[in-house]
């Protein structure tokens, strides 16, 4: 009895030492739990694992479910994609980080615009050779998409969407305030805000929680209004935020917090900001075309709401227009890489991109001229194609600590506890 327990505890210690070593070395070794990522299936069917945040209320849920089902049907007997639902974008990222540290990444990875490439590059399959093998496929990807998904000339993810964001405004409220044309400069923008205020309308929907999406889009657009700022807003993971463009933009955001937005903006989240716009409490919201379908959803807006809404580029002709991080492969065996590649090609095909555009208003990486979409979506795309300044968004570019830091610094900026210079310094500190 006693000795049996001794043996047991010894065995346990051995197991744990083993796992400790595997954990510390970080590099892959034969003993790492490769079995966990999709156990080898019966027969010749190659199973690949595909965890996804596209479930529940996420906007691409239907699309992902339909596409995966179609793929499994089309490749029945050859490949099988096993989907794992991970509700919540942040939960998905958190789990992937743990899996990365345990050297047990799933076969296929796609995030909702969050950049994992710089972090996990060493475990992702370099797709350049497969691109060279298949020139037609290579040509199909847009240049900007390839650029965003490449590091040192190597492709680590396949692009499938573009990040295109302007702002939406309520034409009826603009008319009430006597605003005749869309502001072309930031000075005009603030004049328009004053007119709205004078007409008793709160000008802009803003937020600070969860990195303050609507607010940060405005901030980025302000930064991107000059040539130097445009360059900054296309820099991957900048470490120094102490530049005049960002400080000027922070000063304007400070003014907007204090004068031009709702009381619930400070501390509020995207849902509250969107709701204020839906209720016609505010006249302007910065957000992308995926929001358009909600303009027709009468459970959140009034009957003719969509007719009142128009899209505009930010002052100085700024538009968010950039490639986005796409589909990566982290399979470890040639068979699985082959299967994953087939799946990724399928999910980024023209057919899949078209469906994503038509069902979820997600702007495709390739050009699809005759898609059946809401007019506002096409108008947004058209604005992006003719923009003077094209920038990328902060969430894709900035380091995650900076993205998190803005949400705790905005309230300080709003109540005047810090100056725009201190705001820029705080972001610089967070990036270090």
């Amino acid at each position, binding site marked *: 009895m006693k000795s049996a327990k001794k043996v047991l505890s010894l065995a346990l210690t051995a197991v744990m030492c083993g796992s400790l070593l595997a954990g510390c070395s970080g590099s892959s070794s034969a003993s790492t739990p490769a079995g966990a990522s999709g156990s080898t299936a019966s027969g010749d069917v190659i199973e690949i694992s595909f965890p996804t945040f596209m479930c529940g209320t996420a906007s691409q849920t239907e699309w992902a479910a339909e596409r995966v089902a179609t793929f499994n049907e089309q490749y029945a007997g050859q490949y099988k994609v096993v989907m794992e639902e991970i509700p919540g974008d942040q939960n998905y990222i*958190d789990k992937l980080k743990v899996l990365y540290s345990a050297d047990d990444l799933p076969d296929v990875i796609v995030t909702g615009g969050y950049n994992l490439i710089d*972090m996990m590059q060493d475990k992702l399959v370099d797709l350049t050779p497969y691109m060279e093998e298949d020139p037609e496929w290579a040509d199909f990807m847009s240049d900007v998409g390839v650029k965003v998904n490449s590091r040192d000339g190597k492709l680590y993810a396949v692009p499938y969407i573009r990040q295109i964001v302007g702002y939406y405004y309520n034409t009826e409220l603009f008319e009430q305030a006597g605003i005749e044309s869309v502001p072309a400069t930031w000075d005009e923008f603030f004049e328009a805000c004053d007119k709205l205020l004078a007409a008793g309308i709160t000008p802009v929907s803003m937020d600070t*929680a969860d990195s303050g999406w609507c607010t940060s889009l405005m901030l980025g657009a302000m930064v991107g209004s000059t040539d130097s700022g445009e360059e900054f807003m296309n820099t991957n993971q900048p470490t120094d935020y102490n530049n005049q463009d960002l400080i000027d933009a922070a000063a304007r955001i400070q003014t907007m917090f204090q004068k031009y937005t709702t009381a619930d903006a400070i501390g509020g989240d995207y849902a509250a900001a969107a709701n204020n716009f839906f209720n016609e409490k505010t006249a302007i919201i910065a957000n992308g075309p995926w929001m358009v379908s909600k303009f027709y959803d009468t459970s959140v807006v009034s009957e003719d709401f969509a007719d009142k809404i128009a899209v505009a580029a930010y002052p100085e002709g700024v538009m968010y227009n950039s490639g986005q991080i796409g589909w990566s492969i982290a399979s470890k065996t040639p068979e699985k890489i082959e299967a994953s590649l087939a799946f990724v090609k399928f999910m980024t095909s023209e057919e899949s991109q078209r469906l994503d555009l038509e069902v979820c208003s997600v702007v495709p990486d390739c050009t699809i001229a005759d898609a059946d979409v809401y007019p506002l979506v096409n108008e947004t795309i058209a604005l992006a194609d003719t923009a003077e300044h094209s920038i990328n968004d902060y969430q894709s570019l900035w380091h995650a600590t900076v993205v998190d830091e803005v949400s705790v610094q905005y309230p300080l900026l709003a*109540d005047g506890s810090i100056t725009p210079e201190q705001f820029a310094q705080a972001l610089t500190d967070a990036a270090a």
Partner: protein
Amino acid sequence: MKPKKTTLAAFLLPCILLFLLIYLVPLVLVAVSSFANWRIGQPLSFAGLSNYVQAFHDKNVRAAVGHTLLWVIAQATIHVFLGTLLAFILAKKFRGWKVFRTVCMLPNVISTAALAMILLNVFKTDGGLVNGLISLLTGSKFEWNWYFNSSTALPAVTLGWLLYPGMITILMLAAITSIPNDLLEAARIDGATSLQINLRVILPMVRNTLGTSVIVAATSMLKEFELIYLTTNGGPGNATLNLPLYIYKTAFTENNYSYSNAMSVLLILLGVLIVYAINRLFRMEESDY
């Protein structure tokens, strides 16, 4: 009674095995990696004491430790006091006391995500419950952003757990009600008032449970981060940042595991010190009888 060593071992062994299985590797890993440079996507290297030196100079660590200690002390005193008070009242077993016993645990049952949403609405500037009440009482419209103004964020966040002592209440209530009735009867016959009975007879007899409650309350503040994360996210600035939240952010947002683990070592040491101090304070090694 003198127990045999084998008996002691047999009683302790399952617990030790469970502890070793789940915690040994993490504990060793935390301790070892706190002397390394370990970030996602970067090579591992030895760092000596640099993580600790960094922590010493980090103004966020200073703020976080300060808030953590403040909350530990507030929780170990005010929170435990409220919970104990409620337990003494319920121990009188008036009609419906069982209902109250269930009621005071309700906030511990509903998910933190829901509680955070409720609290955000309670403290909201526009249409928030607190501002609404103040406006009603003063007769003039009152607006204040409790959670996101640097001067009120800390107290507002604190109220989110300080006023919910359900766990302490059920702990104390179980202890108080297990005191044999004849002891209390005897005190009553001697002419003691109910306040005297509570303070002189019952309180000393539940000393151990009171100590347990203080430990549970204090250590809960050394772990608390979800409610802060979901309401103020440690802000504005670092006004409501505590050590667990900073550790979480350093690990999951910054991916700096080694620095996060160095702070974890500090947190664990702090915790062990606090548990030890409370044990001594309540002389918890001794039996009640």
